[in-house]
């Protein structure tokens, strides 16, 4: 008999006024008891709608069933068949728009906490001593993967499991891509990412950091003298956008990428870090996505008294996950929706002193289907701040396109790839944000997976 409780088992979390002063993980994870209780809420529906909502097709009812049975390792194995990064996805996937959106329990009450169960299973597995990994028999084919974010890691993992000799090239000094430079420690502890990368290395994947492909080695060289038969481009969307408003180059205006990279990758939140970060007292974060929430919550943790989210549409349209918005509010982030910055003003020292915004109202729906924000004439006002963080999106880095002849891209920079991830160049595949523009970890993983299958087929049929 399933557990008919209308609500999910609550996720134990650090209290808001405690956690907004530290960088430790916010959500603490289910106990075994809570996990089994939550798993019993699953109706094990015959038509399995949740699976259709998962970009990598995890057999969700099957792994949940194993939790009910108490065979957590088996549950992990079922997830692993489809996902290479369960501990990551259990934390950062927007389940409310994917698996949990289609959960039958969700029609009348809260859906099953699928993400929380995934995390429970993955964490329990990771807490064990490393089991002996059996390296697959090599098949003698070399593949290069550019970028070690979720797309690259997934692609590399899937190919390595098939026996390919895979080398991952990462531009930064640490593997993980957005999982290490972007998503903060309190949402995704870096030790978890490291564990996933170590797992790939145990499978035989080579990870070469400090390699900016396009500059130090081109794709033509990889496929020529270096002997790689196929290349996967998972270089992400790392180029920050700015608004092009006056005052944007004042000291104290940062891209979210810079602010988060200083904080996360360079660990500027630690007292002894050698990378400086300015600890502003009043901060405006422009944008309403997950990156904006991450930046705002980091600023708060770094000691800011007032942190504003400035967003031009209404709260309904905030692109961030609901859970992140709620967490941010609990931690004291102030939401100034329906406001759009028009200018950043200097203080007497020439650094940021304020942000001038104009009030917006919602007009007719635009091409995205959301109601277009329209400025209210004469409604300008100033918020006093000493730092502004621009979190209004990123574009794909043009370096690989610029150094690879015959690689076709969209006007806005995204690499063009077909349904198997194949680009306009033979043997060159691409996926993740480099193709779609900034999206989610799980979609990038899905693309890495698709491309791995595409690469396998390409090489086997050569």
């Amino acid at each position, binding site marked *: 008999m399933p557990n008919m409780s209308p609500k999910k088992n609550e996720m134990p979390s650090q209290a808001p006024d405690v956690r907004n002063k530290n960088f430790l993980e916010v959500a603490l994870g289910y106990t075994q008891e809570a996990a089994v209780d939550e798993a019993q809420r699953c109706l094990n529906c015959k038509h399995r709608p949740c699976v259709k909502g998962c970009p990598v097709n995890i057999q969700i009812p099957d792994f949940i069933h194993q939790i009910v049975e108490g065979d957590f390792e088996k549950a992990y194995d079922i997830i692993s068949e489809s996902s290479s990064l369960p501990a990551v996805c259990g934390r950062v996937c927007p389940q409310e728009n994917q698996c949990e959106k289609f959960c039958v329990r969700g029609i009348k009450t809260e859906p099953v906490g699928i993400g929380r169960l995934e995390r429970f299973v993955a964490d329990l597995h990771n807490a064990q001593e490393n089991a002996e990994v059996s390296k697959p028999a090599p098949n003698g084919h070399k593949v290069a993967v550019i970028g070690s974010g979720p797309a690259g890691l997934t692609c590399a993992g899937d190919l390595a499991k098939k026996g390919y000799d895979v080398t991952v090239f990462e*531009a*930064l*000094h640490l593997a993980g891509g957005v999982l290490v*430079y972007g998503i903060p420690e309190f949402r995704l502890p870096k030790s978890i990412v490291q564990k996933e990368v170590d797992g790939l290395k145990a499978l035989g994947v080579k990870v070469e*950091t*400090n*390699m*900016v492909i396009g*500059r*130090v*080695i081109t794709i033509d060289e990889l496929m020529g003298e270096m002997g790689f038969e196929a290349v996967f481009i998972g270089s992400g969307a*790392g*180029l*920050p956008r*700015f608004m*092009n408003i006056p005052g*944007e*180059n004042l*000291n*104290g205006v*940062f*891209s979210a*990428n*810079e602010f988060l*990279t*200083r904080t996360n990758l*360079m*660990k500027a939140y630690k007292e*002894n*870090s*050698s*990378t*400086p970060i*300015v600890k502003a007292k009043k901060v405006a974060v422009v944008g309403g996505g997950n990156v904006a929430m991450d930046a705002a919550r980091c600023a708060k943790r770094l000691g800011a008294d007032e942190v504003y989210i400035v967003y031009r549409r209404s709260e309904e349209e905030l692109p961030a996950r609901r859970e992140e918005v709620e967490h941010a509010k609990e931690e004291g982030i102030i939401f100034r929706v329906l406001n759009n910055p028009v200018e950043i003003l200097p203080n007497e020292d*020439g*650094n940021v002193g304020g942000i001038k915004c104009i009030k917006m109202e919602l007009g007719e729906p635009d091409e995205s289907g959301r109601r277009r924000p329209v400025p209210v004439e004469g409604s300008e006002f100033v918020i006093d701040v000493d730092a502004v963080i621009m979190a209004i999106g990123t574009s794909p*880095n*043009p*370096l690989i396109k610029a150094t690879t002849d015959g690689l076709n891209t969209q006007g806005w920079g995204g690499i063009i790839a077909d349904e198997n991830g194949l680009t306009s160049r033979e043997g060159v595949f691409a996926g993740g944000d480099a193709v779609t523009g900034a999206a989610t970890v799980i979609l990038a993983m899905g693309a890495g997976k698709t491309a791995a299958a595409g690469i396998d087929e390409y090489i086997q049929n050569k």
Partner: protein
Amino acid sequence: MYKIVTKKPLNPTVTQMEIEAPYIANKAKAGQFIILRVTEDGERIPLTVAGCDKEKGTVKIIFQVVGATTEILNHKNEGEYIQDFVGPLGVPTHIEGLKKVCVVGGGVGCAIALPVAQALHEQGTEVHSIVGFRNKDLVILEDDFRACSDKFTIMTDDGSYGDKGVVTAPLKEAIESGENYDMVITIGPLIMMKFVVATTKPFNVPTTVSMNPIMVDGTGMCGGCRLTVGGKTKFACVDGPDFNGFEVDFDEAMRRGAYYREFERKAHCDACNLFKKEVQ
């Protein structure tokens, strides 16, 4: 990890190192830069490539001890290793087709001006070099400059070596005396480059400046290195580091460059104290 193959002090605060990095040595061109981290948990700092030896697979860097990271780097010896070394980054200096160029270097910027002068010399360009230092003790790379320059002028602020004065004086003189430069390429402190541009602009001599703003990743990801060039925002790491000097907003660049000065000063003191303790 990247091995320090050679280390040589050029003056009391400027050091030259050759780092084993064969891929970079094979690719780097004059005007490009690398980013390094000396230790795990260290900061990432950009340094312009001062030369490469493809056979040995080494990249030459020349740095002045100005902060914590360069202090720690300067305490590393031959045979030791640095944590990270990535490049070549940025766009190489455009030198194709230039017939006659004046290269103007200031202080440690001369280390970056030299490979540009050498590359110009190698392709047959007539090279006039003007280099400036605060005083005689700080002069570096004089012989190397002489070897690749058709004309060579050295200036010191206090007149303790070469001519007394700033680099813009002989530059102005040369332009006024009818030296028709296709281009002036200048690398040095921002204030010097600003005045070089102020000198060349009235004569409309195209002037390239090499910008070295604060960076984190160096690959276009953070935007910390942004500058206003011709009214538009540019990223020095991917759009530069070279820009048309007439269009660069130097005052803004100087403000941005000073943003972390207090932090840097304190970090440098801490690093020095650490080394003092080790000595005791």
